[in-house]
């Protein structure tokens, strides 16, 4: 296996301080992009639910891979091919450990969480969902975990039923026993909402789904980066997430699936890599996980995802979760001082992640985002790829600030001041 990438040492990731926790200011030093000014102000990056920034270790590994190890995987018999394959497969092992999957063959590389969900909808879904069957999702899903099911239901004559949410931003489970009924084949829900921040009690939903012999897919795109996740203890049948939301490169995602389900599913894409033997009239599929990995995968991205996972493990997912609970608690308290703001989602930081959507009663979110950008603050404004949910909240769009390991309370104070400055600028001060 290549040692080249590992030799290119970056600033070491900050060590955990006794008693747990880490210093976000030290973390920040590992992220070159954060050392810049935007419009004359130090950059404050609060759009982490969209994508996170990358530490030096990840950037260096990408470069080292292309400088020293680049080759196609699983095919060549030369040294570079062996190095590339080893590094590529090594990340799969790290991912398995990271989410505590039972077997490495249960970890499928995809282009992202979106493709992972589509993979399940197109294969398991088409095979198992028929006319009159039911697919259950929730009203807080990202479009990625909504549209594939809407399409599957439409194409296969199934019905799509939504678990509602209550005014506090939690799932309303009062009717859950009738929603997940005997005809239900798939239950798909987000682990953590990208708009409300709500962390759903997925174990409970998984158990209810299993009682009706339905499978349960969890969209973990917002959860895996921010808290410890153990797919086996959750009981998830499928679990998906994206590398780029957890310090890794773009273009890479993960589908975890229970082996027996993956074995029974037909392939998603057809081509090279996913076959075992090809004759002119007959093909046998490759074994797991490669059955689902047709074509040349995102090799460099997978290789460079390993240092991202190392970085997070070094900080400790429990510590990251604690850091974000503290930041979220602080942000909720500072933002609720501003009476002209409406804050969406649960107010208890223990029940939510650090993605906070809000709206100003006078300033449109797009004006707000433009104003904040001129102060060096990057936030997201819009419907956050969850249009039905945004409408349900009674607005067309919201502004969202979302935190990660390099954010601190000063960032939130700066945001607070800028939100007040925006009121003055737009004549509502």
């Amino acid at each position, binding site marked *: 296996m290549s040692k080249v990438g590992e030799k290119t040492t970056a600033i070491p990731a900050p060590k955990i301080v006794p008693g747990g926790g880490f210093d976000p200011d030290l973390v920040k030093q590992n992220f070159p992009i954060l050392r810049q000014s935007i419009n004359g102000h130090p950059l404050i990056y609060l759009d982490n639910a969209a994508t996170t920034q990358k530490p030096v270790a990840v950037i260096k590994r990408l470069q080292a891979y292309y400088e020293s190890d680049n080759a196609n995987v699983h095919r060549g018999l030369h040294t570079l091919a062996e190095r590339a394959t080893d590094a590529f497969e090594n990340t799969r092992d790290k991912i398995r450990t990271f989410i505590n999957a039972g077997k490495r063959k249960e970890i499928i590389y995809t282009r992202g969480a979106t493709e992972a969900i589509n993979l399940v909808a197109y294969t398991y879904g088409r095979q198992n969902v028929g006319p009159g069957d039911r697919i259950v999702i929730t009203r807080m899903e990202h479009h990625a975990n909504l549209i594939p099911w809407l399409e599957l239901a439409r194409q296969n004559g199934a019905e799509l039923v939504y678990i509602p949410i209550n005014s506090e931003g939690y799932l309303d489970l009062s009717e859950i026993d009738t929603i997940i009924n005997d005809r239900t084949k798939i239950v798909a829900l987000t682990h953590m909402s990208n708009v409300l921040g709500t962390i759903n009690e997925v174990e409970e939903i998984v158990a209810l789904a299993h009682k009706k012999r339905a499978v349960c897919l969890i969209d973990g795109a917002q959860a895996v980066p921010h808290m410890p996740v153990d797919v086996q203890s959750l009981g998830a049948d499928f679990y998906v997430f994206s590398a780029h939301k957890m310090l890794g490169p773009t273009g890479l995602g993960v589908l975890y699936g229970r082996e027996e389900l993956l074995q029974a599913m037909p392939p998603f894409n057809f081509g090279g890599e996913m076959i075992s033997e090809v004759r002119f009239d007959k093909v046998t599929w490759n074994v797991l996980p490669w059955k689902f990995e047709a074509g040349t995968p995102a090799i460099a991205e997978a290789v460079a995802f390993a240092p991202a996972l190392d970085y997070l493990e070094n900080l400790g997912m429990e510590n990251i979760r604690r850091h974000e609970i503290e930041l979220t608690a602080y942000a909720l308290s500072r933002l609720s001082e501003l009476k002209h703001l409406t804050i969406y989602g649960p107010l208890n930081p223990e029940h939510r992640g650090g993605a906070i959507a809000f709206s100003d009663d006078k300033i*449109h*979110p*797009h004006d707000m985002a*433009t104003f904040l950008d001129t102060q060096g603050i990057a936030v997201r404004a819009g*419907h956050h790829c969850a249009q039905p949910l945004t409408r349900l909240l009674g607005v067309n769009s919201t502004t969202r600030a979302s935190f990660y390991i390099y954010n601190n309370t000063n960032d939130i104070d700066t945001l607070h001041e800028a939100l007040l400055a925006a009121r003055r600028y737009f004549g509502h001060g």
Partner: protein
Amino acid sequence: MDEKLNDLYRDILMDHYKYPRGNKNLDNFDLENEGYNPACGDDIHLKIRLDGGKIDDISVDCIGCAISVASGSMLADIVRGKSLEEVIRIAKAVKAMLKGEKVSEDINLGDLEALKGVSKFPVRIKCALLSWTTIIDALEARQAGQKAEISRTE
């Protein structure tokens, strides 16, 4: 920062945003059209009363950001008393200006020049375009003897 920001939110524009000109309900109108910007959720509803071949009065009901509200207000300000052809010509010139294209010299855009700063903010251009696209669709449909479909800018 303020310089860049003021380029977008010019004084004239901010005045239109705070006091939108076409913000009323027109009871008697001859044509109407709705515009929608799915990416932002901006929503505009135009009602137009004609007098002969000219626009007698207009109401602009816009729910959106400062740019889309101000742009709709400036539209309301400029179209009264003008013929359909003239308004279409001006609206197309404003669209060209917003997209950074060349505007023919025989059109005097006057205060509408204040919208020019928006072209420096690529993601905000569609906000300013909405009202102009909506009125072009309304008037061209009228000229063709049809009713306009809901307009969209993305």
